[in-house]
């Protein structure tokens, strides 16, 4: 324990603002080593992310259809004007935001419950419990999407029999024929699949809450609910925010589930699917790139809002959010 305190003290010592020239030889060689170690990964990251991003930005300024290469024409921001003035874009943005908000909110509640169960489980059952909870997350999204699709599909599905006691659901209920029921299935599948991920993140946050705080609150007569809301949750705020940001960014880019189950039909299309359909399906590279750039900007905004406004520290579980 004392060695940990010592190392922290040593690590915090050089934090005083010092000019570049004042770096010690050791600090300089450590920095050099750092670049040598991280450099190759950094260069590869630049190649595989920056290049396509810049290419998409460039392509988005052209009217360019893959099967009409001779008609390529510079339109500057014309594609953006077309996209942003079209109801289809705003409808798809609405669907994407709905899926993001609902799935993240439900996953957070369920994930916390699962994290609490895993945290308080007796040691002998902990491994089994964690494995059982993690199984859905281990399944490939396309496979899980097909499983949910076949379960709810009117021809092959069996779910209608389960819910036949509900007034609206009978053997003839077609889940994928309208937006409401179809989005419900898509979101349920998404929640089932990714709640384990959020519960794992929350479990790590839960493990960081000092047990003595909860104990002290119990001694002071706090109820379980009060201990959860007044002691545990405030102390794991950073972990919660990290989980929310990661999942929100992920949910905003949802593609597989929608693609497999509805192909975006009947008002279930999301922004990723619109970008895919325009670039890959219609082969309209310019227009599709503009949608992809807008999607990228939306994701950046979510990340920036989380980091700047909610002060989420993505580099550690115990950051400023605490």
């Amino acid at each position, binding site marked *: 324990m004392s060695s940990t305190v010592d190392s922290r003290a040593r690590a915090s010592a050089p934090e005083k603002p010092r000019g570049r020239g004042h770096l010690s030889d050791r600090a300089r060689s450590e920095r050099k080593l750092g670049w040598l170690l991280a450099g190759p990964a950094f260069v590869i990251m630049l190649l595989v992310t920056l290049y396509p991003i810049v290419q998409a930005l460039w392509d988005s300024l052209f009217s360019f259809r893959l099967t009409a290469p001779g008609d390529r024409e510079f339109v500057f921001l014309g594609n953006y004007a077309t996209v942003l003035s079209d109801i289809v874009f705003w409808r798809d943005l609405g669907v994407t935001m709905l899926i993001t908000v609902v799935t993240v909110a439900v996953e957070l509640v369920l994930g916390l419950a699962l994290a609490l169960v895993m945290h308080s489980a007796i040691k002998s059952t902990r491994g089994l419990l964690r494995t059982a909870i993690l199984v859905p997350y281990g399944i490939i999204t396309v496979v899980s999407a097909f499983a949910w699709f076949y379960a709810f599909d009117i021809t092959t599905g069996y779910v209608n029999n389960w819910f036949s006691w509900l007034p609206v659901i009978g053997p003839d209920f077609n889940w994928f024929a309208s937006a409401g029921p179809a989005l419900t299935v898509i979101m349920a599948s998404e929640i089932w699949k990714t709640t384990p991920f959020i519960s794992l993140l929350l479990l790590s946050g839960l493990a960081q809450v000092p047990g003595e705080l909860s104990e002290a609150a119990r001694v002071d007569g706090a109820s379980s609910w009060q201990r959860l809301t007044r002691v545990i949750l405030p102390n794991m705020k950073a972990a919660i925010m990290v989980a929310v940001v990661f999942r929100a960014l992920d949910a905003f880019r949802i593609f597989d589930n929608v693609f497999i189950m509805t192909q975006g039909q009947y008002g279930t299309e999301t922004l990723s699917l619109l970008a895919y359909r325009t670039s890959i399906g219609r*082969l309209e590279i310019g227009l599709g790139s503009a949608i992809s750039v807008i999607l990228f900007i939306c994701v950046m905004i979510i990340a920036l809002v989380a980091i700047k406004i909610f002060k989420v520290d993505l580099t550690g579980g115990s950051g400023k959010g605490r």
Partner: protein
Amino acid sequence: MLLTGCSGGESGPPTLTWYINPDDGGQDVLAQQCSDASGGKYKIQTSLLPRDAASQREQLARRLAAGDTSMDIMSLDPPYVPELAEPGFLAKPPHDVVQATTQDTLEGPLEGAKWNGEIVAIPFWANTQLLWYRESAAKAAGLDMAEPVTWDQLIKAAKSQDKYLGVQGVRGEAMSVWVNGLVESAGGQVVSDGQDGQDAKITLDSDAGKKAAEIIGTIGKEGLGGPGLATQDENASMIQFQGDKGSFMVNWPFIYSASKAAVEEGALDQSVVDDIRWTTWPRVDADTPSAPPLGGINLGVGAASEHQDLAWDAVQCIVSPEHQAQYFATNGNPPASAKAFDDPAVKKAYPMADTIRKSLDNAAPRPQTPYYNEISTAIQQHWTPPGDVTEDTPRETTEFIQEVLKGDALL
């Protein structure tokens, strides 16, 4: 790609890659047979494309646009031929190959292989929809199926018998096929001047378009297509047709071999197959013959292929009437050649071969334009779910397609 390009190097004959659509293995057999028949001039290797036509188009277009030299032979869905021919992605068939392969090609499939009046791909097989019916249901409804029937008669019959009409209401290519078949059967056209590309005239907002909307809307609103109509494709409507409430169905000939296979697997009772009959597509107007949907596959050669001469040789071998007949008898895909229909093996395997041939003579292709994908997707978006189709749908679709083609709207 590198492997394909090098595989025909010094050590053996050149390898031709044939991009095929999924089937029951018939194209693999033909590839082998034609490789053997070439006497060592070439070897054909097949490469499987995705299952649905739209995904096949995506993959082919991307490879062709990138100048992929492995695109030696391609199985092409006719509606997408113009889009690939217009930018020069397809090699022009030599005159002698066209002469040798299209002498006895049926009119419908031949039209589907042309762009700007010239043959740009060679018809390999042709498909068309028939009206399939359960003899018991037709008898109970009092319909004389020896005479042509109309959609209105079928709607009345299904309603009176409390049965389902087998149609495809899914938001997919099947819906465009249905709409186009109805419009053409009513004497109209979805598009005229398709060669004008983005400036093509959309002629869906017509009396024919309104009649098509009336038929589809009625079937949708009155629940005659069954509860799963909005997501029902060809396979789903076949399953419904095989059920207790099956009566009449428009569908491709694959349903016959699929139903027989289901009996062999024990999934379907023999009495159902015994009850299945067929005739030509229903009429929209009682006095005008119907224009059934046309499908099939044409063979094209990539403009960037390094073995174009050999590829055309191979195409000539693949599409011979004998091979078309063999492919029909073994894989259920009807020939584009008239001669192939006379083959005894065809008549034995498919008792409805004559009806298919008759249907192919009258079949109408889908709009031939490089922007078919846009037009088809717009139709799918506006004509599904079928219950929401009204007399305004043709006008709304027309306006929407025009905006999309001009680049003013997303699809």
